[in-house]
């Protein structure tokens, strides 16, 4: 069907429909919702990283306002229990409230209710807990090699999953040059500016639980509530209203999303819990933290032969719903190769349990780690071979003529020109100019360095892959529900959740593209399990591909019905009609959607006899066929300036050359890339959740945990390649996460390039001034 052309369709930088309410201060977040007789919750949290024989004493006078794990157990509430089908995965329950053992500082122990948060916090302080301390497992390597204790006794060790990815290892013999490095990417907190928030109430009329939660996955949360609380699906209604950022932290279930609704049902009053920043920085320090020892093998000409690696992922204490605690370790193990050609592959990847918060899939999911490891190893190799890292990359990237390309571990790159992306980045950053500048010393004695980072990102995880990975939520056909309203507008229900990605605009653009209608007449309804069809939600850079695809396909079904009515009103053959500018166009004349809507709703006596009783309201679905994912990719390049006396790092220039296939809204794509890149800068230089030897968190305020700010990234430049994916509607590829993947690699490479004179390298994020000075000091010994 020819798409109705419109300036508001695919490719247009349409200004965002959702902006107005935020600019007016009229956005509605969970914390903005108040209910009569609502109680506020404060949570008693574990002060220790590891202990047993936990016992809780409620304040005498307020017994009925404090709830513990015992109360939940006696009510038959089931714990979160995510066993991956992945062979060898060791199962563990995630109790909503700690029972018997405490496994990380900040773990929820009891929930206290009062009319105000302050009064609830008073109750929390009056609730006494006692326990017998155990040695804490704090470091992931110790956890794997020499554990001081066991996080889950029944396992016998702390290794959740030990997996080996080995392909054509024999080819490794052909290698003549090898470099070996050990890298570490430290733990972070995701830090959306709105933390987690839950408001739960029982609706006696509908006989159902209504939960407002700041979530990326309302339908999955609904499933979890049914499983844990033993409710029927039609007894739960989940709404994710405006959500102040998610980045992955909100695409997993948190215990509060179960026990706050449960206590609301106990007290028969609405109950609200708003996570404060300290709770977030302590209980949600749950991202990144990988350890790599990597050996990169090449021949004397610099052709990559193979990679060997031993990866350890610190998965924290528990397995999160639905993405489990092995998502990162398996993804890291399988795709360490990145965009490069290899003829041998041997990677061991272990997920280990420690006494820290359970790891969640933060923007980029594992890829910032593997990109950091691989890209730094490549620069090390270049230095060893005495060649330009840029050239070494160019030489080993999968060439465009090899597309579609089967990777050594069985993945399939769908399309793209990786080398062109690198070439453009090199041009934009003007590598030659940097090199020539480097030849003479800086007047102020500072050091200049340039670095690159390339990556590929599998977007919109598909059914079979998710099933292989053994996830608890397997995406199938993404659906959209579309209704033509009596005035000719569209109401579109989607199960994904929009929290900054601008989907109320971009998804509407798809309908505009299909029907050529005014975007003002398209309303996107999302994040509400009642008004939208089922969806596994927003994560894995999937929403534009999947929900967008579903809308396109559903528009086609609806379009047929609209044309059938239109043909009747135009007194012409169905086959002679088409849709453009929200009209059905016939051979001689046209009829508007508004007219067709009027006839269906208000004057059905004018309908054709053969009209489909299904009417002008349709639910249909989409998934790529074959069931593969499109790969986005990009090269980031940057120039840094280092003060060798203080170890301070300054980003002088930053460029990005990316390809996310067909671009729906360039303004929004740039916004996603830039926002992601700054988070990457945070990973590279600033953000770290530190722990002491006992597993006590040391970064519980923004004074200790440094967030990237407006001064930390110069105006970067973004260049777009557009290689439509053959797999998706309009050739769209996902791009929400990509920006956050390569900055640690590019920046660290630039730093190491600047430090090359010292013959030292930084190998751990964030690259703090201390770490730089320690590296420099290392060279002097």
């Amino acid at each position: 069907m020819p798409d109705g052309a419109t300036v508001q369709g695919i490719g247009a930088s349409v200004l965002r429909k959702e902006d107005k309410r935020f600019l007016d201060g009229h956005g509605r977040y969970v914390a903005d919702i108040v209910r009569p007789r609502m109680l506020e919750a404060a949570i008693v949290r574990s002060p220790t990283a590891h202990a047993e024989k936990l016992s809780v004493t409620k304040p005498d006078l307020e017994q009925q306002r404090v709830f513990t794990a015992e109360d939940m157990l006696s009510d038959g509430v089931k714990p979160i229990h995510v066993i991956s089908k992945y062979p060898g995965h060791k199962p563990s329950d995630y109790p909503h409230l700690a029972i018997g053992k405490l496994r990380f500082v900040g773990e929820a122990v009891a929930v206290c209710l009062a009319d105000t948060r302050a009064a609830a916090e008073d109750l929390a302080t009056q609730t006494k807990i006692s326990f017998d301390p155990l040695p804490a497992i704090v470091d992931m390597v110790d956890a794997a090699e020499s554990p001081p204790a066991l996080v889950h006794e029944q396992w016998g060790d702390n290794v959740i999953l030990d997996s080996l990815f080995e392909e054509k290892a024999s080819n490794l013999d052909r290698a003549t040059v090898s470099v070996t490095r050990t890298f570490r990417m430290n733990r972070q907190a995701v830090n959306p500016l709105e933390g987690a928030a839950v408001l739960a109430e029982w609706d006696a009329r509908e006989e159902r639980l209504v939960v407002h939660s700041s979530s990326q996955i309302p339908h999955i949360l609904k499933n979890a509530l049914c499983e844990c609380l033993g409710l029927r699906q039609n007894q739960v209604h989940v709404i994710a209203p405006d959500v102040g950022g998610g980045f992955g932290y909100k695409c997993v279930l948190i215990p509060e999303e179960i026990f706050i609704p449960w206590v609301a049902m106990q007290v028969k009053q609405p109950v609200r819990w708003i996570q404060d920043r300290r709770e977030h920085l302590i209980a949600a320090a749950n991202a990144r933290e990988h350890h790599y020892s990597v050996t990169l093998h090449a021949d004397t000409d610099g052709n990559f032969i193979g990679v060997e690696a031993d990866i350890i992922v610190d998965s924290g204490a528990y397995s999160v719903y639905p993405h489990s605690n092995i998502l990162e370790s398996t993804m890291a193990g399988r795709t360490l190769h990145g965009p490069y050609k290899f003829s041998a592959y041997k990677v061991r990847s272990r997920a280990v349990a420690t006494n820290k918060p359970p790891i969640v899939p933060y923007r980029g999911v594992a890829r910032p780690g593997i990109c950091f490891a691989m890209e730094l190893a490549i620069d090390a190799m270049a230095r060893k071979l005495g060649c330009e890292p840029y050239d070494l990359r160019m030489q080993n990237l999968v060439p465009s003529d090899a597309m579609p390309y089967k990777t050594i571990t069985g993945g399939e790159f769908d399309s793209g020109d990786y080398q062109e992306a690198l070439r453009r980045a090199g041009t934009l950053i003007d590598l030659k100019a940097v090199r020539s500048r480097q030849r003479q010393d800086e007047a102020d004695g500072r050091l200049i360095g340039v670095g690159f980072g390339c990556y590929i990102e599998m977007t919109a995880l598909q059914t079979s892959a998710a099933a292989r990975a053994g996830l608890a939520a397997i995406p199938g056909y993404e659906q959209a529900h579309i209704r033509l309203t009596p005035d000719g507008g569209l109401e579109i229900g989607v199960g994904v959740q929009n929290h900054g990605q601008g989907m109320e605009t971009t998804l509407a653009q798809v309908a505009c593209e299909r029907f050529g209608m005014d975007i003002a007449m398209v309303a996107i309804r999302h994040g509400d399990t009642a008004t939208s069809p089922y969806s596994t939600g927003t994560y894995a850079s999937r929403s534009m591909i999947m929900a967008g695809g579903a809308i396109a396909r559903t528009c086609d079904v609806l379009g047929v019905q609209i044309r059938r009515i239109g043909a009747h009103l135009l007194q012409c053959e169905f086959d002679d009609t088409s849709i453009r500018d929200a009209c059905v166009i016939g051979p001689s004349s046209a009829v508007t959607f508004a007219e067709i809507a009027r006839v269906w709703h208000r004057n059905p006596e004018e309908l054709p006899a053969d009209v489909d009783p299904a009417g002008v309201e349709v639910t249909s679905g989409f998934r790529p066929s074959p069931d593969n994912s499109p790969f986005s990719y990009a090269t980031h390049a940057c120039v840094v300036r280092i003060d060798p006396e203080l170890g301070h790092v300054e980003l002088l220039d930053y460029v990005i050359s990316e390809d996310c296939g067909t671009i729906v809204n360039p303004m929004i794509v740039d916004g996603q890339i830039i926002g992601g890149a700054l988070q990457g800068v945070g990973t590279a230089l600033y953000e770290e959740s530190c722990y002491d030897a006992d597993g006590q968190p040391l970064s519980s305020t923004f004074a200790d945990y440094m967030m990237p700010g407006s001064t930390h990234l110069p105006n970067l430049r973004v260049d777009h390649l557009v290689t439509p994916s053959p797999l998706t509607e309009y050739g769209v590829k996902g791009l929400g996460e990509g920006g956050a993947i390569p900055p640690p690699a590019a920046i660290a490479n630039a730093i190491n390039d600047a430090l090359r004179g010292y013959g030292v390298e930084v190998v751990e994020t964030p690259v703090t001034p201390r770490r730089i000075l320690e590296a420099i000091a290392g060279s002097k010994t």
Partner: protein
Amino acid sequence: MADGGSVDGKGIGARVLRKEDARHLAGKGKFTSDFKRPGQKEMAFVRASVAHAHIKSIVKPAGYEHAIFTSEDLPGLKPMRALSKLPGYKLSDYPALAAGKVRFAGEPVAVCVADSRADAEDIAQMVEVEYDILPAVTDMLAAKKPDAPLVHDEWEDNIVFETFSDDDFQKIADEATVVIRREYRMNRQAMNPMEGKAVFAEWDDRQDQLMMWTSTQVPHLIRNGLAEFLDLEQRQVRVIAPDVGGGFGCKALLQPEELVAGYLTRKLECPIRWIEDRREHLVTGANCREHHYQITLHATPDGRMLGLDCDVTVDAGAYSVYPFTNGLEGAMAHGNLPGPYNFKAYKCRTQTTVTNKPGLMPYRGVARPGVCFAMEMTIDALAREIGMEAHEIRMKNMVPESAMPFMSIAKKHFDSGNYAKSVEMAVDMIGLEKVRASQGVPTDDGRIIGVGMGSYVEQTAHGTSVFSSWGVAMVPGYEQATVRLTPDGGLELRIGVQSHGQGMETSMAQMACEVLGIDPDNVMVTHGDTGLTPYSTGTYASRSMVMAGGATARACRVLAERMEIIGAHLMQCERTEVSIAGGKVVSGKGEVSFAEIGRVWYLNPDELPEDVDQGGVEVTMGYRPEPDSGAFTYASHACKISLDVETGKVKVLDYVIVEDCGTIVNPMIVEGQTFGGATQGIGTALLEESLYDEMGNPGASTFADYMMPSATDAPMYRVDHMESPSPFTEYGIKGMGEGGTIPTPAAIGNAINDALKQIGAEVMETPFTPRRVRAAIEAARDRKEGEAA
């Protein structure tokens, strides 16, 4: 019988106890007036204190200007406009707040907003409205007089429109040797659902949407009206009818207060609540029935009714209501007067007049209580005249079962049934012979006994063609239902109609059970929310069970096919080998539960077949009967009354009902609807009247003046059912929500006249108050004395 083989008799025909009871018995129902939001404000209206006047000035008390709004203060708020396509129909706009002129006492003139209703009423009390009082038109017959004042100045008279038909009446009438002439009047009433109107409006900035919780039967039509008259896009309006405390018709129309609340919540940026109090309802809701009949029946001495000639006048009040207009009753009276009888000739003129009273609304039964009253009372008059039992005349003249389907002289397409049989059964049940025997002997307390009956046929769930022929501003089309299988194998059923006592949360679940064999307890029925349900013109015209029920059946069947595809794949067999039974997909190889189907679609799509429908396990499908001329329910009511000659007080001693609504979905609910309807009929017959003085001031503004039927007024009804399935509808269901109210005034009126025949008195105007009965008796005595002298 059941497509899916229903779960231990919970499908069609089962006396399933209601799912909705639990919350109401626990006091956990949620009605519009139960809503409360922080920062909410309440509205109180300044209402016209006179029936007809020009507004000279409205003076806002100093310091309260910001809290008071008149029509001038609400720019862009359009008047309600309900245009009929009937020839000669005169349009009248209905302003939400009176502009320039008030046309009935109680018409909203200004609205006051405050933190509490009491405060708002304080302000309303201080507003001074100066009127230039005009003579009021308070009687529908006077309204037709050439010198009558005009309700709408731009019209040349007070007649909204006329209908007239005459198929060569005179020729056939000439055969008649018996001619009965009568004049009947059915007076104005208020519908009085126990919950009055209530509105809660809130602007949702996140959705850029007006959220309106309102006590309505027709949420989607209210959405249309709000969008139209507030100038909003449809996407900017979501209407939700939560629990609704009865409707009976007055909640099937857009109300001025709904428009004002929707306007003000956006203007004032705060939630707005308005709860109609009983006085407001009795004054502004005095909007139904009020017909006048000048009827002539031509018959033969052996009781054959040949021709019917009638002049009908309908008092439509001041305005045309949205969307049903003020043309509905006149058109329906014209088409329904001959009832179930087979006349050779029919001549009818209807005139619908405007008066200075609230705009007429379609109250349960819509015009038919009036026409049935006139027709059935006239038949008994004929019976007395020719000395024949009235039921014999009825049976003799009714359309016989053998003639079905039958096109009546008033162009009604009767589908099925044995009308005469219902009369015969009713006569047996009431024990006519025993009553006749007892009538000679006066009771010890000096009361006299009478027996009477009324028969009717009711067109229900009539569709597109019928409504478009009436020119109504709203035409129903395909009714739709959305069904969604949930991941645990439960069913969500979404319908655009609204259930406010009819028990649809149960009966619609029974329908799903009938098709899919799923336990009704696992079916959640969602209704009354434009955001969640497919479009529907809503609940009225006894249509919901036929239309939404039919749509539910159709949607469930499509869902069944979708589930069969998945089930067949899971059982590794062909589509053709599987079927749905007892809430499972079954085949020779075994069975797959709905829960399993749900699990696979939602949680393990990796197990889905390639040919699965991408629409998944969520379906919207529509239904419309073919032909859509309606399913005709009918019944005969018979009752026995005692009458205190000295006080004129009437008591209903026994009341029997024989009804046929086709296939019965839930007998308990059908009987509940029938008893409730009949009791409203008793109200019409004996108690309820919205009185007006000659200035048009309402005389019944509290329950002390307006008599509602209580437990002491209603008898322990006895009911018997006939079941003639309609050939036109899913499962042969006919609508029946309204029927109970239709023949009661006729049956009781006939019983009174039967008792009074020894005195020679006749009552001809409802309600039959002691005062009217006494007046009839006195008149008869005066006549006798006159004759004697």
